[in-house]
């Protein structure tokens, strides 16, 4: 009897961070590393029909490490790890009597870890680079936590994403660097989860002589809806499958020194199915070995 639990938002947005860097592999010996805190607190979600319904206030906080390292000029190794993940739900308190109707709970564990290998299909320096990335999603987080089994820091399944990125860089005006990229990927999931189609666009602009980067992203996840649901399994504790999502994200990176910098971002879904209806935020520090 299967018991399947999915992470409403964190796994999707976490794996979306893997797309950082687009079709440009790191040069051999170069790298980019970031330690950040990502969080979302939501009291409503998108239903299976894309409408918005309430839920108990739920929070997910992830302390994450992201690292890219150029193994060769074409091969880049990437790790995206939730080193510490906290998931909690609020108490439910009676407005009439003040009693706690249902006590809130929290779990704190390591979260899921993604390991990727990016390969540049085009030679370094190509004006229109292409790269392919294979990501392995390791289910190192906890599923079924709490007395109700509804707290989690991972999705509990081993997934593989094959993705192709393409893009180009250019100058806006005389001194402003910019780039655009896009990606298309397939997420193969296990343990009865539906496969997903993922695609998106990214546009980045470097201001102040590339000390300050603004990045805008459009990300979409479409479900093939070929996995299990509560209707075809005898275990009614199964979480619904078939999450879908379209959202935008805005990220700002500022170099405090040639290599060290701070990063902040926010993201939100403007449409979705079985996903949190609230923005997520991230703040962190990065180290750029490329400079």
């Amino acid at each position: 009897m299967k018991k399947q639990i999915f992470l409403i938002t964190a796994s999707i947005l976490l794996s979306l961070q893997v797309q950082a860097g687009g079709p440009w592999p790191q040069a051999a010996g170069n790298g980019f590393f970031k330690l950040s805190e990502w969080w979302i607190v939501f009291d409503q979600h998108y239903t299976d029909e894309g409408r918005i319904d309430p839920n108990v206030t739920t929070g997910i906080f992830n302390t994450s490490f992201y690292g890219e390292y150029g193994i060769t000029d074409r091969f880049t190794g990437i790790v995206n790890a939730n080193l510490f993940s906290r998931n909690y739900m609020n108490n439910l308190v009676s407005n009439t009597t003040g009693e706690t109707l249902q006590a809130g709970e929290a779990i704190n564990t390591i979260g899921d870890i993604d390991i990727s290998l990016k390969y540049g299909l085009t030679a370094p320096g190509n004006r229109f680079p292409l790269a392919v990335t294979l990501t392995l999603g390791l289910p190192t987080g906890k599923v079924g936590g709490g007395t109700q089994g509804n707290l989690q820091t991972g999705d509990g399944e081993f997934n593989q994403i094959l993705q192709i990125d393409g893009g180009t860089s250019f100058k806006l005006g005389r001194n402003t660097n910019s780039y655009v990229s896009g990606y298309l990927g397939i997420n193969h999931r296990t343990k009865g989860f539906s496969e997903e189609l993922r695609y998106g666009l990214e546009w980045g602009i470097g201001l102040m002589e590339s000390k300050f980067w603004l990045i805008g992203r459009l990300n979409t996840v479409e479900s093939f809806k070929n996995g299990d649901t509560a209707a075809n399994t005898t275990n009614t504790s199964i979480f619904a499958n078939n999450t879908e999502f379209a959202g935008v994200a805005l990220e700002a990176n500022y170099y405090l020194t040639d290599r060290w910098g701070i990063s902040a971002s926010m993201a939100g879904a403007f449409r979705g199915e079985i996903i949190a209806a609230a923005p997520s935020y991230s703040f962190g520090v990065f180290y750029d070995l490329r400079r």
Partner: protein
Amino acid sequence: MTMKYFCITLLSALTLTACIQDDIVFDTVDPEVRISRAVDTIAIDSSYQFEAVYLNNVGVAELVDILWESSAPDVISIDNNGLASALQTGSATISASFSDGTTLVRDEVEVHTGEETVAQAIERSGVIQTTTFYQLEGNFTIEQVDNDLLIEIADDYVASSALPGLYLYLTNNPTTIANALEVGPVQVFEGAHSYTIPNVNINTYNYLLYFCKPFTVKVGDGLIE
């Protein structure tokens, strides 16, 4: 070194803000008195013990002094403890009431006298309705089968199979599962099916409640008429 302390301070501060707080549930319901054990006909020169329960403003039973009255005490008399005696041929309205000083709540039943005591044939029914954007609807009936409660969901029932962890409860407060009786996980999402709940009186509860455990949120309900 400065960057290291900055990271530690920032991450510690953000993690500490992830504290469990309170979500307020507006769970007030109208208090009521409900005659939970009744009869259709009492044999003349015999007695029958009525029972009633007072449910407070969150739907929880409270022990209070119920006032029992008969509209025709020369036909059916009733004492302060709800013990009724059938005296002569006829009918009477038996009522149970309670006042907390500001609000009077009352329930009543029509009772006849006759040659033999006849149990009240009770079948209750209602309509399941969603209170969210998830699909949930259908008709149902409830009947007492010996000491057990039989809930029969009609063929027009349908529920979204995307609902995670959907459970059915019996309750007197349709806003919360606190003090509710868990019937069990929903395993049928379309068509007729039934639930048998042992040792439950048909008049004990007034609502079916559908509740999503993982999201800790109500999905729908059905008032039992």
